[in-house]
């Protein structure tokens, strides 16, 4: 509630076109895993000043523990915050429509020539690097929880059950998450 008092002036309605172009830029700049958050923050917080740092951190946390493509979730939430339902539609359209058409066209040309040895080798190299980026992103987002032994235990369990035991995702998710939340709840109760 303090955020309201800090605000310099009453909120003016953000133009829908501005929401559209902002998330178009986020989408086109965010190449590779995780790049989107950087650009969403840069544009929504620093350049346009639509959200404070704290509000943006809230949105990212919310999106992190909801299913789906997280950056699309940021578009949904920022759009909803600025202009309600119509704002969400503008932000999500900006994020998706043009980048989807461009990405699909470029990607299909690539796929068409995927049998060529050179292109195949290039893509193989990119896939190897991309796998490393994904592993690093998981580790990086886990770092804030490294002081909680239970958190590390559940991360290792989830990793092992998928990688080595090859259990289906649903089984791992619905088997581990309730346990993990229960233990987090007990920890919190004890800390009081």
């Amino acid at each position: 509630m303090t955020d309201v008092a800090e605000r310099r002036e009453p909120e003016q309605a953000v133009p829908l076109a501005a929401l559209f172009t902002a998330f178009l830029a986020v989408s086109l700049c965010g190449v590779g895993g995780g790049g989107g958050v950087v650009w969403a923050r840069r544009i929504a917080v620093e350049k346009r000043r639509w959200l404070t740092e704290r509000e943006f951190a809230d949105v990212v946390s919310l999106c992190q523990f909801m299913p789906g493509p997280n950056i699309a979730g940021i578009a949904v939430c920022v759009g909803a915050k600025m202009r309600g339902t119509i704002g969400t539609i503008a932000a999500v359209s900006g994020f998706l429509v043009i980048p989807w058409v461009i990405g699909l066209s470029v990607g299909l040309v690539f796929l068409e020539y995927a049998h060529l040895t050179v292109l195949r080798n290039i893509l193989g190299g990119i896939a190897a690097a991309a796998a490393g980026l994904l592993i690093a992103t998981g580790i990086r987002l886990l770092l804030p929880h490294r002081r909680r032994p239970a958190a590390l235990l559940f991360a290792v369990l989830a990793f092992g059950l998928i990688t080595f035991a090859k259990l289906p995702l649903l089984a791992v998710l619905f088997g581990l998450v309730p346990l993990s939340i229960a233990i987090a709840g007990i920890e919190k109760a004890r800390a009081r």
Partner: protein
Amino acid sequence: MSDPSAPLALTAHLALVSSISFGGFPTVLPDVHNFVVTRHGWMTDQDFANIFAIAQSIPGPNMILMMSFVGWKVWGFPGAVASAFATFGPPCTIYFASYRLWDRFRDAPWQQIARFGLVPVVMGLVIASGTVMARAADTSWPAVAVTTAAAVITLATRLSPMWMLLLGGALGGLGRL
């Protein structure tokens, strides 16, 4: 594509997994891989790895694009559109509904507890996804080195991921992997 119900099965499956893809779509990649390659044989391991590499190296909503390529392989353009909607439709609806709730219960203790419980499991799943993709991509020791280097550099520096993708692509193109 021999089975006419294939597009429907794929779309329904993507709509299901996108609704449970906590932590983003990478967490469900092993499941999608299992569904389209192992169970249904709609594409080869090589196809799936190619699609992953392309989706990671072009700008835009890369996981939605990746699922669109999978849809394209199964059912052409309509498949690509259906897969895109199945991938972002259910999550965006959930995001919108939960944003409203979130604002109301911003300071509730259960929110922090849920986050503390969920995040470690989700991150374990993300790391597992990277490992599954590495298994498909790393066919040689130099490729393993590229994966390891990309992970270490990302953790140790603030270098743009683009450089790692470019380096991997360049080494691959020169036939060094």
